[in-house]
């Protein structure tokens, strides 16, 4: 461990080093290290400034911003200097601003869990951004700070909407083929009846009572055509969300015909509806879209065919566990399950959605052993053989 002073070195060499002429004969210089650290810091600053998200370092408990990156300034449409020393509550729109300020001021804030809040931000130019604000406490040199990250989710939301729209259009495309066929059948019937009626009309002395029957058939055909049209309109509608009391059983029944068209012939459609189901507060169009998406996923998960089961049930809060943990009310919940039952694989892949009376959907994940649900879809010839289902209600 120790090296003695006389080890392999002449007195002259040692004397030169004592005088201070050795290579390592230096006092202290922190400067090279300082420059290196400053360079590292500048690099890091650049990284931070060019991050897509706005990042704020907030002092606690005051809630004052002590540092913010360039992206934060851009997001809020203000100069970076204007952010520094401003209060976070004044910078971020509520409820995000108030929530982050509360996190800063809280007792034992260093142990507080982080938070994530989505909030719209009105910008100076009149545009509205959708922000997702996450904040959590961090400790630097014994001081507690809060780091808040504001992400502009506008683009993501727009893409999600686009994707949903594209999925809907795809479903419509699939429907259109089948419906055109059906529509043609109906029209053929109507035309046949019209021809028949015309012949009757041309024949002198014909019985008007017989005409009425033909007219009745024409009317029936026209009504079927109108119902078909309504279904198409239903799917293609891209309305704003209009929450209303929605009967899930009725929704499933009304969609059954349409769903039958998007699943292949060798796949059975099994519908099991609970009789004591209460209505939920939701948007009819959205629910239909969700059901359609789940069915398409389930269909794609079993290309070899099998049984596609749709089921509704009434569940109470306790049975939902963590899913309903943050539900504000204690009301009952309604569950809609779409399952693909493959004869060979033997393992169902369930994609269920649960909703409660006050609205809001939750995705129930597939159980761990489940085959993941495929989101890929391939165009298929729609089947035209509907199966009867339990439960009864008519579509309008």
């Amino acid at each position, binding site marked *: *461990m120790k090296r*003695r*002073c*006389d080890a392999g070195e002449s007195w002259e060499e040692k*004397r030169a080093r*004592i*005088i201070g002429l*050795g290579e390592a004969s*230096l*006092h202290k210089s922190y400067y090279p290290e300082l420059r290196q650290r400053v360079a590292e810091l500048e690099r890091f600053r650049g990284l931070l400034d060019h991050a897509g998200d706005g990042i704020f370092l907030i002092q606690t408990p005051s809630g004052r911003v002590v540092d913010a990156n360039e992206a934060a300034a851009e997001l809020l449409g203000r100069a970076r200097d204007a952010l520094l020393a401003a209060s976070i509550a004044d910078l971020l729109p509520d409820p995000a601003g108030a929530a982050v300020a509360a996190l800063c001021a809280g007792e034992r804030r260093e142990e507080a869990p982080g938070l994530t809040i989505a909030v719209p931000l009105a910008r100076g130019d009149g545009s509205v951004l959708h922000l997702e604000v996450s904040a959590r406490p961090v400790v630097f040199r014994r001081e507690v700070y809060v780091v808040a990250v504001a992400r502009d989710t506008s683009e993501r939301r727009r893409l999600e909407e686009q994707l949903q729209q594209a999925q809907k259009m795809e479903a419509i495309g699939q429907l259109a083929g089948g419906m055109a066929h059906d529509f043609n059948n109906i029209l053929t019937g109507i035309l046949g009846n019209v021809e028949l009626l015309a012949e009757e009309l041309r024949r002198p002395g014909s019985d008007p009572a017989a005409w009425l029957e033909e007219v009745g058939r024409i009317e029936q055909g026209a009504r079927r055509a109108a119902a078909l049209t309504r279904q198409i309109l239903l799917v293609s509608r891209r309305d704003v969300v209009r929450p209303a009391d929605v009967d899930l059983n009725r929704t499933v029944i009304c969609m059954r015909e349409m769903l039958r068209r998007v699943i292949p012939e060798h796949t059975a459609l099994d519908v099991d509806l609970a009789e004591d189901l209460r209505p939920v507060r939701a948007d009819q169009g959205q629910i239909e879209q969700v059901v359609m998406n789940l069915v398409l996923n389930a269909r794609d998960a079993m290309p070899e065919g099998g049984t596609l089961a749709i089921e509704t049930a009434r569940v109470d809060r306790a049975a939902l566990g963590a899913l309903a943990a943050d539900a504000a009310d204690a009301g009952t919940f309604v569950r809609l399950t779409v399952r693909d039952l493959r004869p060979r694989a033997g393992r169902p892949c369930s994609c269920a959605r649960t909703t409660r009376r006050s609205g809001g959907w939750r995705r129930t994940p597939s159980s761990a052993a489940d085959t993941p649900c495929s989101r890929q879809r391939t165009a298929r010839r729609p089947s035209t053989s509907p199966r009867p289902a339990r439960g009864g209600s008519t579509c309008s």
Partner: protein
Amino acid sequence: MDPAGYPELRKFFAPEITFGAGARFSAGRFATNLGLERVLLVTDNGVRAAGWVDQVAARIEQAGIAFTVFADVTPNPRAEEVMAGARVFQQEKCDGIVAVGGGSPMDCAKGIGIVSSNGRHILEFEGVDEVRVPMPPLICIPTTGGTSADVSQFAIITDLEEHTKIAVISKAVVPDVSLVDPETLTTMPPYLTACTALDALVHAIEAFVSNASSPLTDPHALAAMRLVSAHLVASMQRPDDLELRAQIMLGSLEAGLAFSNASLGANHAMSHSLGGLLDLAHGECNAMLLEHVVAFNHAAAAERFDKIGGAIGLDLRGMSTQGKREAICAEVRRLRRAVGVETSLGSAGVHRSDVPALAKNAMRDPCMVTNPRRPNQRDIEVVYEEAL
């Protein structure tokens, strides 16, 4: 001078120095200036009892800087004490050191600084230029004259296992700030005052005759000899005379500036070896050896010794070389007796049988390489024997 007539390359290192009564009170300001947030205050219990540590701590606290006191330092600081201090430094997340006291706390503080930034055992830094990573900022407040650890590039640590002292010599251990306050000398016991002042005199003489001396160090060495020799006896007689204390403190500082840059010689090499064996006071060891080392070195630097004679107040005109040598040795002896440092190696407990081992260790001491006369081991044994 080299053959071409140009002086050899020389460096001169010194900390930022504040000298004068009340210098100790600027500790807080310097700590702030160095960016410190949590200071390790290294001292010993004697200095603490004298009250100097509390005064310094108060100023540090007033500056808004936290501190932890480490006072587990014995005279002749041991490697274990350095390592214990370094652990405290790390545990308390300190970022700088303030040393208050004599040579022991200051050398210990240097050791703590070296270990805390280099992360190895202090004994691994023995030798010259072995400290590669700069240590944290160090502020020294010397409360004894003499050792000059507050300005020097030396840290002397006792290796108990090997019964010797090791020297860590590096420009990197020169403190950043030295606050030299003569008021702190007033609480020193008389015998310690005498020993440390004699140590300063030895520093000045050894630095002046060192083969690494230079025009940068000579004026400091001569000034130190003049100040110490002229005022030591009077200062011992009037211990509360602050002006006399200031002269001794200044002499000690001048000696420190000289020897930190010109290094020392056989006297210190032999004294380190003695201190490792017997745990004697450093100044006392040096004082016991001085006249014998002067006699040994005189012929190798006769002209320089003439100037030393002048500086300590002797009139050597008309004397033979041997006469001059005798006169200097006699004056050293007189001064030593006048201040009551009369022990010899024999009376301090050194036996003739110890001499070979003492000489062997002294030969390996880095101070030996700048002695004006290059000795062999037998030469050193003879000097020890004469001092018995």
